């Protein structure tokens, strides 16, 4: 077995597959490691449509989207090992070499790589992070667990269901439960506005008559052996529980759809710089982390709204790996990307003056009639409506970026010239 590669890709979901395919197309030797027993990643269990509009110009379901990518990997010949878990990494920047410790059912072994593209995705936030107290009994699932149970293994997780969290994941799962005959008692959202797309509010909740409880919180779960009820309370504008608003909702299942966190433990252990606003690594325009030769993409980089963005980032990371190997490092003068008014996060954290850049931005709060503004290069884009649920993706031309001196700031400001 060969032990040294130009690129080792960690993770066989959309980002990792796209990175592997692009790296192969650029002529690099690639080995992809996937810790489950199949390539394709999480979209395999996301049976709803809405995938592929950016990448393929078609509306595909999750499994179809994953299988397109697997098909591309097959076409260009991306070598891979299944059931292979990366237990640790060591970086030797002076030798431009990274070592990975891998555990597989066939034994533990070491691999060497010039570059690593880390695309291990995200983990779901759990009940402790949602601040729900009470009994820890059967019937508590994260949305992803429930989705795998239903849509891979054909098992219904419960009959009377309360969903916590109104992001797209929570809304889509609420519809799935209702469609399969469960009674969805409500989707409970802490904030005063829903976390998901308007389309999903309409097509997932309104179509099935599922109540949306904004400014509410599941405070406690009660039950003996199985969930029996959820205690739901109202919260005020500062998200504090309003006393006296408690009510009991009978249910046998509580689903947590309270968000994802980039899963980057092996990178943290290596000491990469982490952006607290994304929970993922700080990266430059090639999606290279603070450790030379280690790139990241997809939900390990930051939680993306669309799997299509993960694919786009996979390609960019592979291009980075190619440049790293060709030039023995990436010697660019990186300029920092700062966050201004109503900007929660912006990726990448550094960009180069001489290259086109794609920047992903998420706002802090919903607003109307605003514009995305970059004062340093006098660039703006009008936006009729912005929401935290919808990532904004902008492409900046190298020509515009030549005007940067020290860095740039991205801000969302009221569009005063409008109407």
């Amino acid at each position, binding site marked *: *077995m060969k032990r040294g590669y130009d690129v080792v890709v960690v993770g066989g979901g959309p980002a990792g597959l796209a990175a592997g395919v692009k790296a192969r197309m650029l002529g690099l030797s690639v080995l992809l490691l996937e810790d489950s027993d199949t390539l394709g990643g999480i979209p395999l269990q996301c049976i709803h449509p809405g995938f592929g509009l950016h990448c393929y110009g078609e509306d595909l*379901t999750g499994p179809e989207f994953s299988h397109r990518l697997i098909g591309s990997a097959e*076409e260009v010949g991306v070598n891979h*090992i299944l059931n292979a878990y990366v237990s640790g990494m060591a970086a030797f920047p002076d030798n431009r070499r990274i070592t990975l410790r891998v555990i597989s059912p*066939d034994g533990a072994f070491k691999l060497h790589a010039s570059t690593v593209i880390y695309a291990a995705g995200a983990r779901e936030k759990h009940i402790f992070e949602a601040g729900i107290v009470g009994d820890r009994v059967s019937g508590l699932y994260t949305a992803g667990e429930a989705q795998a149970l239903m849509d891979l*293994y054909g098992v219904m997780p419960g009959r009377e269901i309360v969903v916590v969290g109104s992001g797209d994941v929570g809304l889509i799962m609420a519809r799935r439960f209702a469609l399969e005959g469960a009674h969805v008692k409500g989707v409970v959202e802490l904030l005063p506005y829903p976390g998901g797309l308007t*389309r999903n509010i*309409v097509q997932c909740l309104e179509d099935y008559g599922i109540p949306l409880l904004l400014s509410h919180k599941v405070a406690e779960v009660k039950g003996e052996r199985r969930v029996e009820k959820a205690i739901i309370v109202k919260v005020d504008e500062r998200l504090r529980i309003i006393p006296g608003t408690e009510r009991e909702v009978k249910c046998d299942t509580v689903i947590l759809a309270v968000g994802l966190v980039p899963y980057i433990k092996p990178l943290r252990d290596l000491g990469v710089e982490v952006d607290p606003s994304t929970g993922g690594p700080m990266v430059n325009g090639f999606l290279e982390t603070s450790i030379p030769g280690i790139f990241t993409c997809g939900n390990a980089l930051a939680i993306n709204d669309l799997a299509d963005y993960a694919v786009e980032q996979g390609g960019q990371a592979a291009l980075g790996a190619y440049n790293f190997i060709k030039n023995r490092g990436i010697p660019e003068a990186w300029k920092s990307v700062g966050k201004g008014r109503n900007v929660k996060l912006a990726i990448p954290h550094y960009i180069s003056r001489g290259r086109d850049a794609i920047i992903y931005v998420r706002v802090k709060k919903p607003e109307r009639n605003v514009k995305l503004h970059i004062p340093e290069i006098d660039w703006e884009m009008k936006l009729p409506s912005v929401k935290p649920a*919808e990532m904004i993706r902008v492409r900046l031309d190298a020509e515009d970026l030549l005007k940067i001196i020290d860095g740039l700031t991205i801000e969302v400001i009221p569009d005063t010239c409008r109407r």
Partner: protein
Amino acid sequence: MAVKAFTCTVCPIGCEITVIVEEGKIVDVKGFGCTRGKDYAVREVLDPRRILVTVIRCRNGRLPTVSVKTDKPIPKGKTWEIMRILSGIMVEAPISMGQVIVRDVADSGADIVATRPNPKSDENSDQPHPIRIRSFRR
């Protein structure tokens, strides 16, 4: 007279559109920001359609289910009828992606197609084997 209110889903702005219906006919549409939004609201009143996705049971496959979709949007009113039909179906692996499972389901004009392949279960897959770098090229 009936007043139906919608949140438009055509674009992220999400206009609140109201459609006024009298004796089954649309007499007025208000609140839309563009003609696409107006068309959306009219369609939602006269003939709302959705792509329906679910899973059906599958025997002898690597997974016990196959994910499926309607190959075109179906009238919203046929949702439960189609779900009832699909709940009674059991297919046999192998299933290939895009395979038609039910033709013209519930006279909707849409076929039910598989969105995930399900190969036959591989009974030897738990056997120990040397470290296997899989290549698609055989």
